């Protein structure tokens, strides 16, 4: 159809859709076309397309790929297929018994409807909720590199205080990734050239001066699985999420914690923070401060302070630093009080 004096017609942006049934075809299809993208649960992708935050795309639906299983490996690790749904993982006895912190993080995320749709692989790639990222009228280095960061001086109550840069202070939105960070999960990725495995800490990138880069994936790379190494002490673990609203809201602060106390001292600890950082934040400073020390309020508080020592508050989010400390202490005291018996 053509109209207009010059005979030119502006076509609506085209979004095409195709469905593939095996991993190799999926990777080949997307790799061959720079405008192509994988479509899994669609709970972020479709939103982003609807608000014109992403360009025209050729969507390749991968929901038929056989990568949705939750499997206990011979070595005791648990492998989550990238297309396993959030709810399936949360309800899986394999996960719930071994990694309660992950099951809790999943159940406390999003809403039941979203959890039924959203995939674990997609969860790792979900985009920040920074309102300026989704707002075309605002400057955002993540959306348009070099355009600036409206959040630095804007409404930033929900923004990050850890891992920030002068280019971006957007908080990472995932709960599940925080628990997986505490669990030292491994992200398995496949592409045309083969298979890669990323330690979760290397998978999520702090913004620094390239906030548009959130992970090391190249075009065509497909997350196939998330592997969680065995961690016996995680059987007594928790995910504590603090937010204004009781449900269906992102964390102001969250703490994923696995802790083993022996003879009154911290024998093993894994801790990660959500809601306060630009990536799922492994609390290594706090872990270091806790290890071998008495499991007491004073030491917990000290460790929490260590972790937030370099936090950078902005105009509205300074309270998150104190809230993060208190939430860490609460989590540590809660698990300690259980006395190691789940």
């Amino acid at each position, binding site marked *: 159809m053509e109209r207009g004096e010059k005979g030119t017609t502006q076509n609506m942006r085209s979004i095409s859709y195709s469905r593939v049934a095996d991993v190799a075809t999926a990777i080949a299809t997307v790799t061959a076309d720079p405008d192509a993208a994988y479509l899994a649960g669609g709970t972020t992708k479709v939103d982003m397309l609807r608000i014109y935050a992403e360009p025209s795309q050729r969507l390749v639906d991968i929901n038929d790929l056989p990568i949705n299983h939750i499997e206990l490996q011979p070595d005791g690790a648990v492998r989550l297929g990238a297309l396993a749904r959030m709810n399936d993982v949360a309800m899986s006895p394999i996960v719930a018994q071994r990694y309660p912190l992950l099951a809790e993080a999943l159940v406390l995320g999003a809403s039941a409807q979203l959890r039924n749709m959203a995939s674990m692989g997609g969860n790792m790639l979900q985009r920040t909720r920074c309102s300026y990222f989704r707002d075309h009228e605002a400057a955002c280095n993540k959306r348009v590199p070099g355009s600036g960061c409206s959040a630095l001086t*804007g409404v930033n*109550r929900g923004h990050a205080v850890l891992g920030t840069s002068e280019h971006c202070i957007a908080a990472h939105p995932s709960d599940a990734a925080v628990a997986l960070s505490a669990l030292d999960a491994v992200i398995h990725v496949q592409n045309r050239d083969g298979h890669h495995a990323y330690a979760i800490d290397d998978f999520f990138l702090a913004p620094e001066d390239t906030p548009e880069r959130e992970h090391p994936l190249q075009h065509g790379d497909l997350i196939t699985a998330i592997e969680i190494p065995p961690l016996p002490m995680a059987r007594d673990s928790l995910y504590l999420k603090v937010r204004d609203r009781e449900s269906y809201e992102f964390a102001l602060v969250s703490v994923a914690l696995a802790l083993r106390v022996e003879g009154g001292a911290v024998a093993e600890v894994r801790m990660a923070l959500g809601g306060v950082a630009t990536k799922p934040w492994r609390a290594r400073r706090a872990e270091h401060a806790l290890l071998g020390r008495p499991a007491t309020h004073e030491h917990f508080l000290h460790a929490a302070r260590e972790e937030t020592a370099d936090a950078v508050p902005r105009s509205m989010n300074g309270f998150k630093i104190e809230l993060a400390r208190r*939430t860490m202490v609460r989590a540590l005291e809660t698990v300690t009080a259980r006395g190691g018996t789940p």
Partner: protein
Amino acid sequence: MTTAIGRPIDRVDGPAKVTGAGRYSADVPLPGLVHAVVVGSRIPAGRIISIDTRAAEQANGVLAVLTHLNLPKGGSVPPLVPSLAGAAATGQTFFPMQDEVIHYAGQHVAVVVAETLEQAEHAATLLRIDYAAAPFVTTVEQGREQAYEARRIFGGFLPGRVERGDVDAGLAEAAVTVDLGYRYAANHHNPIECSATTAVWQGDRLTVYDATQGPNATLHTLAELLNVMPSHIRVVTDFVGGSFGCKAMIWDHPALAALAARHVGRPVRLALSREQMFSSVGHREQQEQQLTLGADAQGRLTAVRHHKLSPTSHFDDWAEPSLGVASQLYACPNYQGVYRLIRANTMTPTFTRCPGEASGMFALETALDELAERLGLDPLEIRLRNYAETTPGDGTPWSSKKLRECYRRGAELAGWDRRDPRVGALRDGDTLLGWGMATSAYPCYQPGNPQRARARLYADGSAVVQASISDIGTGSATAMTQVAADGLGVQLERVRFQYGDSDLPNTAAAVGSAGAGMVSAAVHVATTALRDQLIAQALADPGSPLHGADPRQVTVAEGRMALRERPDVGETYAALLQRAFMADAEAVGTWNPPPDTSGGSMTFGAQFAQVAVDPDLGLVRVRRLIGVFDAGRILNRKTAHSQLMGGMIWGMSHALLEGTRMGPDGRWANASLGEYLVPVNADAPEVVVETVESTDTVVNPLGVKGVGEVGMVGTAAAIANAIHHATGKRLHRLPITIEDLL
């Protein structure tokens, strides 16, 4: 007489709503329908230098791109008059796209019309608009220095300053005073259904399907804005998915839809997006209040001084009347209330559920709690000591008031007297518990015009009763069916209430908690007129067993007229009409409202809240809300209690969640349901609602005082007072969030 009134009847429109059969204003299927999308200004102040529409105009499916350069001229903007007056009711005295000047962010600057919604949305992204930005003010903080005292506010209906007695003398003689500053975030309404209008012209006649609280308000406003005769406009509103005030006044989108429809010669649907709802249909303004109370040693108020400061638009002196109820509730001889305004680059604020009552009473009811603490009085006792037996202004009697009974019953339900009143004394593990209470009151506003309804009874005894009112989700269609059944004396199942159409007998907009009272009055007058007409016909009919009887001795039940003392003597309406070869009988009823009674007529309530506070993490969770209300007569206990419960949960939301934040760029920064928090089911506490029925012979024939808003009024204060009881902290801002409690 049957007694349908009061029964907890299920909603008559319920099945259509839950099955999806109900057609809302953006659902109406019309042949040839096309879609309009509005585009809002990116900047809050300045002017448009240029709009490049070429790419949009050439996009697939696009029929028109309207801007200030080519928008067809209409009529003129009527004055801002609340829609309860029954006339034109523009939300602001500004109509966009008349010139290049920008007054607020989101101001509509273009309308794109295309064959499909997606094509229109896409074309809207292709517009290239260059602006010259100008300095702006959008917040109290930015505009404090240029504040002025308003001469009148609220569409000119209320004075900017009210005084009685001598407030300085009252404060001088006080044994105790409190002087407190309050801050409130702006709020937006966020009904489920975004505002939408579908407009279709047939020659010079216009039909509009509009999501509105008043089909007639839309009609009269469009008549003026478009310069079309009211007789040539029909407004239909079958279903409304909530409003809470954002559809109480008529904004520019219905007129833009009509202008676009005329321009392209096709029916046009214009539905606002969720984001556009934050800058197209008004809001509750950000505000500050300063409240000074003086009391004698017994806790009796000697003075109340209440000042408010808030931003309004560049067009209108609007402030929600935050000082109104708070000035009328307690017996206090010395009072001063002053509204100060700031000219700001926002649209004109508007009614938002409990417009003013919620914010003003939050200040008064938390300040009273502090005063009680200073005097060592129980919070309930200080309210009883200041109980106004007559209206504080001129001492006239209340039209009805059973507030004392509400206090008593609410305290009983809460176990108020058994609680440990010491701060921080109640615990549940590490959680601090607290109880708080507050008074609620909401004026009984009266419509400005006569309210009409028509009743028609068919020869088989079934009836249709009509009035133009829309049911905005409150259950009014169900309640009016009950009123009509009782008025006629027929079974509920035989009555259909027809509504939501400006062609039906005139009513004002369903606003200000006044809808049930005013429309029930018209329906009652119409149906009892028809009943009396049929009784008179029977008495005059030699063929009737009631021939020659005393009309005062005739009663009607289940469609049968009979003598009160001899129920066996009588006949049905159907028999009467069939004998006379009449297919139906009809009567129109007109109810002329009394002069405004809102000063001496109110819905009252006592509210109690129990909160649980996690003191380390700053988390407040409401465990119980108890509300006991005197709302006059209850038409439907189920829908009325749902209204009150919804109001209470909204009050909780006002207290703890809702706030629209203005960004430094002069735009609302959290214009989405992801970031503007409203409560979810997990937040909803146990809610206990009771009503104490009072007989009110002043407000309207059935004594209905209204339940739409009063449930919200005292909730936030009761919660804040409970937080103090739990933690010892006095919080003077809304919403109260985690950072306030760390």
